[in-house]
């Protein structure tokens, strides 16, 4: 297996990129001086992938909500009745997994026996084992997971925001589904999903630590047959209107104070790779310029008492969808909403000073550098970026390229005060 070596001198970090003969892409981030190793192995398959043609069939299939996440839980069970956690534990690996809108990923960290742990990771993900009995058992466990989130106001305010923002895109649906939707899951359905989505060219393996790149191929060979790949997955999404579905949504829960999220919907979807990376960084810079701790808007809202230190902004931009949200706790969420819209309008007229832009760019660049302190952060950032066709080492270059004009265009395009949502969770 050959690796291309990419080096970013400014931050002193290297990335090795290669493709295994099965079609699996492998990224290695060499790190010396740390105790830990980290590996994350993921498929481009998440909660938004609900309509597709299963491998070897010709008809479209629509999945009940929560299948990708259900599958993530189930893969840990091994055909011999054991559990992957138990295998990891014997060689000191600490394993976990997560399902997002567009990725399902399996991971471990360890401070010894890296290659043994890697072998277990590749093995368990590639040996699905589903039975009526083990599926029924998981419905109970995930049922409790869903109920835990039902009581979580941060989670609810966020998903309510998405459900108001989107007409059709499945990003509006809860990742874990509902107790009712997961009751429809069968072993047969799960096999259809692993056969279709867990094929090597739809997956990426990211390894972080003091690792010998020449040793990796042997473990991939052992666990992934060369002819396993079945090419590109045929999946479908309905067209999503550019406008938000509803501008306001609320719910009542046992909370002490209203919790809010203000969301802006991305209208210009379909970008990937370097352009998307640049767009992402520009959006992050704008969040800071508009409402960062050094901004006039932040201090005004903070001193008038309508926001507290919980106020925060974040953006998630993908090829198929995107949004930016500002959230926190407030006794008067509608006032925050008005203040946020007003501040955005004002910025569109007044612009930003060169000094502010320079300062915020410094801060944004430092977050990227800081990320390289932590093995898990590196692995998670890399797998998400690579799935979107981005090279994380381009972060420095992309940030430097962003100028005032680019920022103003992005401000006008993305922060459309006519196309945003206010979601509030009020106390019962």
């Amino acid at each position, binding site marked *: 297996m050959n690796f291309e070596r990419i080096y970013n001198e400014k931050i002193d970090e290297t990335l090795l990129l290669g493709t295994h003969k099965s079609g699996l892409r492998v990224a290695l981030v060499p790190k010396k001086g740390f105790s830990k190793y980290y590996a994350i192995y993921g498929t481009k398959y998440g909660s938004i992938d609900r309509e597709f043609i299963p491998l070897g069939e010709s008809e479209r299939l629509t999945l009940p909500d929560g299948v990708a996440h259900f599958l993530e839980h189930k893969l840990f069970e091994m055909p011999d009745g054991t559990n992957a956690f138990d295998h990891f534990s014997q060689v000191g690996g600490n394993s976990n997994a997560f399902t997002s809108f567009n990725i399902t990923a399996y991971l471990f960290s360890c401070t010894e026996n890296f290659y043994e742990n890697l072998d277990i990771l590749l093995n368990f993900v590639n040996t699905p084992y589903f039975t009526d009995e083990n599926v029924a*058992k998981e419905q109970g466990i995930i049922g409790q997971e869903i109920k835990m989130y039902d009581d979580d106001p941060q989670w609810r305010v966020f998903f309510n925001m998405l459900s108001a923002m989107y007409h059709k895109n499945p990003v509006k649906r809860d990742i874990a589904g509902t107790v009712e939707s997961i009751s429809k899951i069968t072993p047969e359905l799960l096999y259809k999903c692993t056969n279709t989505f867990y094929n090597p060219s739809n997956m990426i393996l990211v390894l972080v630590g003091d690792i010998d790149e020449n040793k990796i191929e042997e473990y991939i060979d052992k666990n992934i047959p060369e002819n396993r790949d079945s090419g590109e997955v045929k999946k479908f999404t309905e067209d999503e209107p550019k406008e938000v579905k509803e501008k306001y949504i609320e719910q009542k829960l046992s909370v002490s104070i209203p919790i809010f999220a203000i969301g802006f919907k991305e209208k210009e979807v379909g970008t990937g790779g370097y352009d998307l990376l640049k767009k992402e960084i520009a959006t992050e810079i704008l969040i800071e310029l508009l409402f960062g701790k050094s901004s006039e808007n932040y201090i005004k809202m903070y001193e008038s008492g309508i926001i507290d230190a919980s106020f925060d902004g974040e953006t998630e931009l993908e090829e198929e969808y995107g949004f930016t949200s500002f959230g926190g706790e407030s006794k008067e969420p509608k006032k925050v909403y008005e203040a946020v819209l007003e501040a955005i309008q004002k910025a569109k007229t007044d612009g930003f000073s060169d000094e502010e832009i320079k300062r915020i760019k410094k801060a944004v660049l430092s977050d990227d550098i800081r990320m390289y302190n932590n093995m898990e952060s590196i692995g998670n950032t890399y797998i998400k970026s690579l799935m979107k066709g981005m090279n994380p080492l381009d972060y420095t270059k992309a940030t430097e390229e962003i100028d005032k004009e680019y920022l103003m265009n992005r401000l006008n395009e993305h922060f459309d005060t006519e196309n945003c949502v206010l979601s509030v969770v009020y106390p019962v």
Partner: protein
Amino acid sequence: MANIKTEKIVDGAHIRLVSARQFKTNRISMFFHIPLDRENVTKVSLLRQVMKRGTKNFPTLTHLASELEDMYGASLSGGIRKKGDGELFYFTVEYIADRFVGENITKRATALLNEVVFNPLVEDDGFSQDYLNQEKKNLQSYIEGIINDKREYAQLRCVSEMFKDEPYGIFEYGYIEDFDDITPKSLYEFYNKIINEAQIEIFVSGTFDDEEIISEIKNGFNISPRKCGEVTNKIAKERDEIKKITEEMDVTQSKICIGLTCDTPYDAEDYPALMVYNCVFGGSAFSKLFNNVREKLSLAYFVFSRIDKMKSYMLISSGIETGNYDKAYNEIMAQMDKMTKGEITEEELVAAKKALSNSINSMRDSLAAMEDFYMSQIICGTDDSLDETLSKTDAVTLGEIVKVGKKIKQNTIYFLKGKEE
């Protein structure tokens, strides 16, 4: 103490240098170690908020935030951390190491920490009235907001019931009822007391020039010698009868939380056995609680146990269906019974030791974790290095686990009861 260099500033104040080149960042933290007491706890909590609002030379949040951004995105945090019957009141500046930005940020970071701690914004012998008022409101909404995270809330309630009327039962973020008596002047007087009397530990971690940083601190920081009254710590006491508390709430999932006393202080010889015990019982994804309460009986999504080193107690926490209370409780106790009977496989023992080795070694990969580890060592007066801690847990035998397990006694059961289906 290994891997760490100590430099005395004056009596009661030290600099601890933790050198580690693999990180992109440095941290400079200043800790004040004080007792947890009901009279002052709210003042400490407000102090950390007010001091972060502005200083003489950076009088507003905007000034402070701009300075931090200009220092290549440095961060300033101020916090409080419970450590047994005492608490740490601290400020940290974290920043990108000088070699990545080509500037001496270390000097600016040290100066900023000095400014925040020793040069606060003072008007008429007191803190700013506006800042104090605003921060009282913020702290109030924070305290009231604890209930928004039901899992955290249940654990907190369990601990406060278990240690009621003891220092450890005090809520470190303070009490709203104390607000009225705290004025800009009284808070400033309290500030002066801490600054002049409390034990000070300054941690510098990352990549830096030892001599330069020592001289910056010694010459720049106005630290006078101090006696530092001793902060005492007692381990959790057994209770004759289990205390049971049930609280009803309009929630979908109920939470059960059990507090137990361990009677095994951190400096006892069998403390490493308690660490292994916890890992096998409920502290891991291969634990008895995980494999039985969750995997076998599907009663919960999360179920775990953890131990507190200084107070020597265990907390078991799980989210369940309201009607499954008895089932879940009985299963948790059945698993504990297996531990006491020594029904622990060789695989479980191997796994637990490896998991502990993994988590102990992983501390070396985080400046914040190392700082906390060494700070705890200073408070406890122990000086085991990470390697020594590792070799002790590795030597633990099945017999020792059983023995340490027999000392674990139920103390308080807290049930956050939701709707019945």
